[in-house]
């Protein structure tokens, strides 16, 4: 089954900036389309200005070619409908983010738009938000007052905003 092979290939493509999580667990795959000679993979960018998109595209092309051979033409397209939202990250993905020292995005936001995450290192809830903006578009910078570690969190992104 070609589509299964493509999925397997995609499971080897990591986020170039967070190498503990693959793009499936990040919730970036929208659809795999298959015709006789063509495989089209529709991906959802996390943030529109993310500079890693071109790298992800190239990595997907080579991973899929490796898995299914060169009998197929492979197209990778980024679409923004439906929009990627942070609740698309799988539960496995949430664990993998923690391994990289990044707290998974909060599942719920408060009514005033505020949000809270626990420390990915020690699990403490005694954390403060240092900067909503972080080293990449999808991350924020926080600090744990229990274990005294700075850490990052995936920014919550939802259509309710």
């Amino acid at each position, binding site marked *: 089954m070609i589509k299964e092979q493509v999925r397997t290939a995609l499971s080897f493509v990591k986020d170039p900036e967070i190498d503990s999580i693959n793009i499936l667990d990040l919730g970036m795959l929208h659809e795999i389309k298959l015709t006789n000679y063509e495989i089209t993979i529709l991906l959802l960018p996390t943030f529109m200005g993310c500079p890693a998109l071109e790298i992800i595209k190239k990595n997907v092309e080579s991973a899929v070619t490796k898995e299914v051979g060169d009998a197929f033409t492979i197209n990778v397209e980024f679409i923004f*409908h439906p929009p990627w939202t942070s609740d698309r990250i799988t539960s496995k993905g949430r664990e993998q983010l923690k391994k990289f020292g990044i707290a998974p995005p909060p599942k719920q936001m408060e009514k005033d738009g505020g949000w809270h995450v626990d420390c990915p290192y020690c699990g403490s809830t005694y954390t403060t938000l240092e900067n909503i903006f972080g*080293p990449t578009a999808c991350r924020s910078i926080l600090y744990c007052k229990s274990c005294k570690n700075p850490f990052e969190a995936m920014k919550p992104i939802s*259509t309710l905003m």
Partner: protein
Amino acid sequence: MSEQSKSISNPIYKEALTELLFQLADDDFIVAFRGSEWLGLAPHIEEDVAFSSISQDTMGHAAIFYKLLEDIGAGDMDYLAHARQAEDRRNSIMLEEVNGTGTYLSEPHFDWAFAVVRHYFYTQAKKIRIDSLKNSSYQPLAEAAVKVNMELYYHLLHWKTWFQELVKAGGEARERMEQAVKKVSSNLGDLFLLGDQSSNISSLGLIEGEEQIKQRWVATMTPVFENLQLQIPLTMEMEKGNGRIGQHTKDLEVALTTLSEVYNINPAANW
């Protein structure tokens, strides 16, 4: 034939849509460039991280709008972003103004109050336009608005916080903010205009009319200004002209020369 391609095959619809998309794309493109010039110069390191992240998001939004133009046959998106002359640009004039004296490479005496006011006023106007675009008659644009809106949420929160804190600080901070409000207001008018195609743009349901957008902006800003005991700018002049009809300043020409320098080395190259 899909609903979209039917609309696009109508030349009046296509012309209005093209005009609106250029306004949206060119606004985000130039304001993201002006934001990027602040890299390394922002008041503190956390702001440097935040401002560059916002500028990167905003450049991503410009890219969506240029892509929508490419999709309806307006030309290659890199060409549209880099190679069009100043008179072909549709951005609001206040977005092209330099950040201050000097350049980011030499003697940059940039004005932080001006940056905060400009970005806050623009981001609030963008938020109102994006909310309206969610109901656009052109479905791909409505879908793009949903995506942009999620990122915009954080930008607006950021600039509103800076604006309020600096005004509330009083003293020199408040004085400089008041001056910046005056400066930005003197060229705020065209931000709410829709150019030559204005009546078609709104009557075809692409986005709400100029007056409605402007009124919503004033209504949203009024409580913020009242709370700070500041005079809200209602005159919204256009001292330097109307960017929506291609009137621009030397500042835009210089910016375009700088930002397209690499592109112009080899326009066919795939960077």
